[in-house]
């Protein structure tokens, strides 16, 4: 199908880092079933390094591929690098997404941020609330 790039299809067919981390240090879930996509990210963090990351996704091909690519991009990285991961970077790493599928990469970025927020909160780490999207007041479908 020409809808997606080879990279998207590769990550969709052979998703990296699928699964669950028991006793994860941070968990983030975004999206809702009504909109047709949910992403859940699990992080294992040691000395500010993401030593392991897993995901579960309910959604279309590009949602699964975006989750897979995003987890690859933050694995082994410092949490500040993960915080700076943008949806645009995820989409570019996938050699682009169709315009109406860009929200899938947004979900991946949001899921990672939410998992990091969970980690900060659990560990009483002071964080800058401005960098986290306020999902309640946002009309976008990714808000849960």
């Amino acid at each position, binding site marked *: *199908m020409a809808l997606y790039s080879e990279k998207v*299809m590769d990550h*969709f*067919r052979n*998703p990296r880092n*699928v699964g*669950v981390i028991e006793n994860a240090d941070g968990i983030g*879930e975004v999206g809702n*079933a*009504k*909109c*047709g*996509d*949910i*992403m*859940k990210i699990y992080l294992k963090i040691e000395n500010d390094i993401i030593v392991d990351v897993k995901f*579960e*996704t*309910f*959604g*279309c*091909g590009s*949602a*699964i591929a975006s989750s897979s690519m995003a987890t690859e991009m933050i694995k082994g990285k410092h949490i500040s690098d993960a915080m700076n991961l943008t949806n645009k970077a995820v989409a570019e790493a996938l050699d682009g997404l169709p315009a*109406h*599928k860009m929200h899938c990469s947004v979900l991946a970025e949001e899921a990672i941020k939410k998992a990091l927020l969970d980690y900060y909160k659990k560990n009483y780490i002071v964080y800058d609330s401005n960098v986290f999207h306020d999902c309640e007041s946002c009309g976008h*479908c990714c808000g849960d």
Partner: protein
Amino acid sequence: MIYLDNAATTKMSQTAIKAMIPYMDCIYGNPSSLHSAGQKANEALTDARERIARLLGCEAKEITFTSGGSEADNQAIVSAARIGERSGKKHIVSTAFEHHAVLHTLNKLEKEGFEVTLLDVGENGIVLPEQVADAIREDTCLVTVMFANNEIGTIQPIEEIGQVCRGKGVLFHTDAVQAAGHLRIDAKAQNIDMLSLSAHKFHGPKGIGVLYARKGIRLTNIIEGGAQERGKRAGTENIPAIMAMTAALEEACLHMDENSAKLTALRDKLIAGLSKIPHSVLNGDAEKRLPGNVSFCFEGIEGESLLLLLDDKGICASSGSACTSGSLDPSHVLLAIGRVHDIAHGSLRLTLSEENTEKEVDYTISAVKDVVEYLRSISPIWRDLVSGKKEFIIK
């Protein structure tokens, strides 16, 4: 490749292809021309019109050739609206799960001041003649109800609805795009005033269709220009496509009973096999449905990823999920039969043709089972459902 998307379009039959060729390289004249080359094409056109009329149980002059089902739907509805308008009748009755060619035309008329009543189709996807009778008002100018639904395949009680409309003196149009060539159509006996069909749904070519309009119903032009089709549809007639459509419809009607028996057996085998997948549900009535239509919802997964993985296994299918419709909402048909968004996103439509085999059906059942199981294994919703954190919608 296993092609199970025959409601989207079909492969052209050899009969249709063979019927088409002479009108491209031999009898290529313009039927409006006075010379002999044109007159030969005109004779073919006359012959095709008579044959189509015979197959639909109407008269040749009641047949207008169009570019397909959508144009026929547009012209039928707009014509009825213009007729109604002249006597102050500006109310139309239809159903919630019509094709967009009907619904969007109705939307356009609403903006012009028409009032539209869309009837519920219930969980089994069938509208009752009594509902139509109750909805008809003094100012109703048209009832338009599809013959069979394109997504869930349910067959509507057309003859009875036609009778209701006849009794109340209201025009009745039916979008028979999914029915033509697959179900018996007899315009007169079934009390149908107007009917739309499209050739590529019964192994004919794309880009050609028919609007049947009972004698006396004045059609409004959608396309202006020359005097073709009694001045009601301008543009040089697509003779090769018309000849191929005629041959395809004749063949489909001739073999209708045997095709229907074969498809029904394959369909029911497919339904029985897919029903074994836990937390799955058949969409639409199990019996009053097109012989080749299978439509399911699977809880906890999304349709587009299901389609892509089935495609990897060589199966061409379709879905009503939002991601495949290009909007945020899943199919209006699935919502109309009461499937909630969460479930409608996980839909799968498989539509058979006479060429499919039992072996293909067996392979498809096992492929769908594997793919659904895999997608559930990576779905956070499925985890929540299985762990009891969330309640199953499909029991």
